[in-house]
């Protein structure tokens, strides 16, 4: 790749879920790279495997899931090779943290928010004194613009927006350099969502964060990412700088996805959508998984997964339509 020193580099990652007697091939050969300070938006519809990628990076996959191939190199260390104990003691939350969508279920309903933040910090940084912990917690709450009274509140007393800010505070407690937002603003109303994403932009600068933003909503991706990666049915279809992705998407799926989004301003023609349904992932098509729904599909699409073609700086596409650029292959 053209990126010399990525903070995170995921190479050929595949994840399989055991389900009954079969297996679900949820993620296949995904390669992603993220330089320090950048924000990558990982977009896809349900079943695309985007949340599985996040869970694999943090090694939070459920029992029945297995990383079958690939590496996850973070700051020079392959996380996929680490023991659970080492990952937990040195990396998870201290170096990499995550904010999920359903955050209310992450906190205990019978303890005050302040106590829970303190407990978590005690566990993650046992060396701190009580005064140091208190100082850290108050500082983080201020950073995410929450009033001090949140400390004495129970989770159910907080609005959706405040709850999500609390979860961001929880993720930032040990000031990790890398943060994953997995549909972190999805359940919020539009005004709250916009507010939280603006806060995230500010926090990114303040904490020098590198972020991976996972969403089904291209509007969210447009608001917070520098570059966009598109997944469909477990395969990574395209990676491009944001402006280029929205002005000149290359993959037929990316094009169809953008053409499905109703517009808020300007002219809007009839939406087209994408006919057909997601392929069965326990028996996925052997080649390009979008081929059964693709208007440009040809016989060779179903033969083998197409390679990634580089069609411009930082712009790669997994589609044989771009085979005219063999000299630019990465």
């Amino acid at each position, binding site marked *: 790749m053209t990126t010399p020193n990525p903070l995170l580099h995921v190479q050929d990652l595949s994840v399989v879920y055991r389900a009954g007697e079969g297996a679900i091939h949820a993620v296949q050969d995904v390669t992603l790279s993220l330089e320090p300070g950048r924000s990558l938006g990982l977009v896809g519809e349900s079943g695309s495997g985007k949340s599985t990628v996040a869970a694999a990076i943090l090694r939070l996959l459920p029992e029945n899931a297995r990383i079958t191939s690939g590496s996850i190199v973070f700051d020079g260390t392959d996380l996929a090779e680490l023991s659970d104990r080492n990952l937990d003691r040195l990396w998870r939350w201290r170096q990499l943290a995550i904010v999920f969508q359903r955050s209310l279920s992450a906190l205990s309903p019978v303890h005050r928010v302040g106590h829970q933040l303190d407990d978590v910090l005690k566990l993650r940084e046992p060396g701190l004194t009580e005064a140091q912990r208190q100082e850290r917690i108050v500082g983080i709450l201020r950073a995410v613009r929450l009033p001090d009274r949140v400390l004495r509140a129970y989770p159910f007393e907080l609005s959706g927006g405040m709850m999500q800010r609390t979860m961001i505070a929880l993720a930032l407690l040990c000031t990790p350099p890398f943060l994953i937002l997995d549909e972190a603003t999805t359940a919020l*109303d539009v*005004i709250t969502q916009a507010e939280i994403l603006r806060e995230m932009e500010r926090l990114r600068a303040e904490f020098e964060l590198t972020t991976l933003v996972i969403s089904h909503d291209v509007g969210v991706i447009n608001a917070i990412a520098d570059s966009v990666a598109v997944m469909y049915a477990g395969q990574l279809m395209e990676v491009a700088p944001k402006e280029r992705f929205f002005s000149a998407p290359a993959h037929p799926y990316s094009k169809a996805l953008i053409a499905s989004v109703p517009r*808020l301003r300007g002219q809007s023609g009839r939406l087209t959508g994408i006919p057909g*349904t997601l392929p069965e992932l326990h028996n996925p098509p052997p080649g390009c998984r979008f081929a059964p729904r693709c208007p440009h599909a040809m016989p060779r699409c179903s033969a083998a997964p197409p390679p990634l073609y580089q069609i411009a700086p930082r712009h790669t596409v997994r589609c044989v339509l771009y085979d005219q650029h063999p000299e630019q292959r990465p």
Partner: protein
Amino acid sequence: MSGLPPTEPLLQVTDLRCLFPVRRGLLDVLARRRHAIHAVDAVTFDLQAGEVLALVGESGCGKSTTGRLLVRMLKPTSGEIRFRGRDIANLAGSELKAFRREAQIIFQNPFEVFDPRQTIGSSLRQALDIHAIGTPAQRDQRVHEALEGAGLSPPAAFLARYPHELSGGQLQRIATVRAMLLEPRLLVADEPVSMLDVSVRAEILNHLLDLRGRYGTAIVFITHDIAVARYVATRVAVMYLGAFMEIGTVEEVIDRPRHPYTRALLTNTLSIDEELPSGERIEISGDPPSPVNLGAGCRLAGRCPFTMDRCRTETPRLRSVGSGHRVACHLVEEANAQASPAIPAPPQSATPPRPSSRV
């Protein structure tokens, strides 16, 4: 529709209110206090045959409650809903059944509305059976044609299947087919595409619009997504805490919004369109207040950046700012009065006292 003179609206909603009592604690009982959630408050509008009116707003704004009142799944606390000239509050027996045939509703999650033990074919047939439409053979024929018309072909492949065997998008299309089998004059669609993937939404929305074109059905489309409203609707009403803040055509409300709340919603909605100049964004801070026991004054007064003294004491009423475009905002009203001095502003009748919180 053919039987209606074009001037008579299909639906006339006047001063519609729906209050939900809140459970009282011991202290409330002793003090003889009663609390109520003002889910829908003084909502007034007309709907013409074939129109698509979008009700937009954030969660808890009363848009779904309004939808349920329109098809009489709920009864209003006060106010009137006239459907083809008749108040639906007093319908009973065969008249109510006839109304139910003419006013249908579809919901966000199609998996919750189909009986999981019933095949799609039998669920669809049931709608026609209940209303005894045609002979049994004709009913089967009709179900067949409707599925085919919705692009669900071959129909035989769907008739024998159970809801869990279908995708969300397919089942929502079947829910739409079922609602439209009876060729209703009114369809309430409550967030019908919210849980579907964006690539599947277009098919459902286009299907709804096609059906409206074919049968002249009026649609009340409930959504939190303004871009979706812009795509499907002819008119838009923006709700906040149970009340209409602004209503007008799509071009008026979405392309030239007047109410600060509408402007806040629009300028904060994330999109892939060109970015707005940052000065245009209206910031509304905090969360909506509780809809329990709302006092006098504008509901938005605590959050609106343009709040004046008057906003805290006097509830703004929906006033016309142009043909059919109505806005409930003192600021807009005053700006309008100044902009056209030739037309004197309507006399300021004191706002009638709001109904107290008695249920």
